[in-house]
């Protein structure tokens, strides 16, 4: 009983708030009840460990060096798709973000409509949109870029809007009080303040899009994806190893670059 009297939650009664306790309990119950439905089975998981180790072991083979030129060409295509798709998406998401931010939208109806359009754009994964665009414009990297840009606008528009919604209202008032117009307030008071969040989002999305672009080849939408899936199906682990390493390398480099850029933007040039 001593614990009860010495330990207190920062609430009037000293006990954790009831909704919190209830919520956590309900969540645990839900997990316990639903685990069998999705076949989460620890016995099976442990039983299959051996197979997993076996598969990983097969990856340690001498790489197929003859494949390197084609790998480089395909990786370059993947990176180009990523950058192009993301760049198109940035241009489109900035205005969408302004329209979808509660404090920047011209009207609450526009806010709701834009939010709904953005949800629709990101409702389906890139792969599905790529299928749609492949049947529309044919095989190749173009439908891949279109699919990437499309889904990215859905995500980035939402992230941008949320970054705009948390900007400091004092600065906005400061600019507004000096007679700046509608667009000027958004450009000079809101966007500069939301910039660090924007950059963070863009860097994350680049990372995400590179991984998405790496799989789009599966449906004939360009990039390394086709080779990746084919070498898996044909058990060409000597190629698979190289492809996996190449993707990992590019993602890591991107991560390093994003760290630098972000701290530069947040702290200014001298940092």
């Amino acid at each position, binding site marked *: 009983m001593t614990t009860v009297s010495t330990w207190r939650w920062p609430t009037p009664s000293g006990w954790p708030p009831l909704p919190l306790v209830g919520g956590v309990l309900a969540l645990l119950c839900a997990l316990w009840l639903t685990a069998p439905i999705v076949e989460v089975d620890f016995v099976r998981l442990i039983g299959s460990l051996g197979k997993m180790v076996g598969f990983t072991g097969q990856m340690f083979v001498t790489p197929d060096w003859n494949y390197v030129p084609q790998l480089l060409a395909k990786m370059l295509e993947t990176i180009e798709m990523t950058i192009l798709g993301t760049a198109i998406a940035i241009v489109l998401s900035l205005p969408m973000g302004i329209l979808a931010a509660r404090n920047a939208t011209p009207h609450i109806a526009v806010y709701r409509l834009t939010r709904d359009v953005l949800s629709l754009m990101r409702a389906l994964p890139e792969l599905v949109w790529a299928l749609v665009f492949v049947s529309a414009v044919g095989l190749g990297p173009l439908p891949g870029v279109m699919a990437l840009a499309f889904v990215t606008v859905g995500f980035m528009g939402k992230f941008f809007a949320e970054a705009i919604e948390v900007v*400091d209202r*004092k*600065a906005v*008032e*400061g*600019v*507004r*009080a*000096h*007679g*700046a*117009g*509608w*667009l*000027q307030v958004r*450009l*000079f*008071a809101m966007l*500069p*303040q939301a*910039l*660090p969040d924007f950059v963070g989002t863009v860097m994350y999305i680049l990372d995400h899009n590179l991984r998405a672009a790496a799989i789009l080849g599966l449906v004939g939408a360009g990039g390394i994806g086709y080779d990746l899936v084919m070498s898996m199906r044909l058990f060409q682990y000597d190629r698979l190893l190289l492809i996996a390493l190449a993707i990992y390398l590019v993602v890591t480099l991107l991560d390093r670059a994003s760290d630098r850029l972000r701290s530069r933007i947040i702290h*200014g040039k001298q940092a």
Partner: protein
Amino acid sequence: MSAISIQSVTKRFPNGFEALKGIDAEIKSGSFTVVLGPSGAGKSTLLRLMNGLETPTSGEVRIGGESVDAHKLRHIRSKVAMVFQQFNLVDRLSVVTNVLTGRLAHRSWVGSVFYLFRKEDMEIAQEALARVALTDKAWNRADKLSGGQQQRVGIARALAQQPKVILADEPVASLDPVSSEEIMALLREICDRDGITVVVNLHQVELARRFADRIIGMNSGKIVFDGNPEQMTQSVLRTIYQREGIEDDNSLDMALAYA
């Protein structure tokens, strides 16, 4: 001719709080007016009405003969600059860009889309920075400056607007005594040299006495004193700062003894 005319203005906020209970005042062009009063007296609301940041529940505010209404806010604001307690600068922009935002009222959105300003705007901004002695900080980011310096940027932004009126809402409340003195002297100098009408909300009685042409005392939404600094006696101060329901307020006497 009065620069600012406030005619039977009341302001009730949506939560039911009545901030202003019938205010009438004329403020002469080129004068330096200080508004004194306890927190919650309605000083800020009154000032914000003059810039259209709030709209009156009834009554009218006129700036240079023109009514402050929602349809021509931008036009009114191009003549009325505002200096804030928390400076309200855009932290992430350079000092000079912050000053340039004072020019936006006079420019269309077309150039603004590309962050472009005219050459004469840049000259006006540099001149304003020279007035507040911050030329050497022009390209620093606004949030790298000290509080006193940031407030001077705020004043430079107001100057760049080339306004008829500068409203300052507790401009020295976040500053140390030396910076406060600097800021008040700067505002006074702008009033004297440029003939700009200045209205300042203050908590410092002593600063009000030294810098103001005219002092308006407010208490719970009403004007309780209006006169020059010499007329502001100890008993007037008691009226301005008295608290509702407290007859013999000892802490009031203590606080005002050396004011």
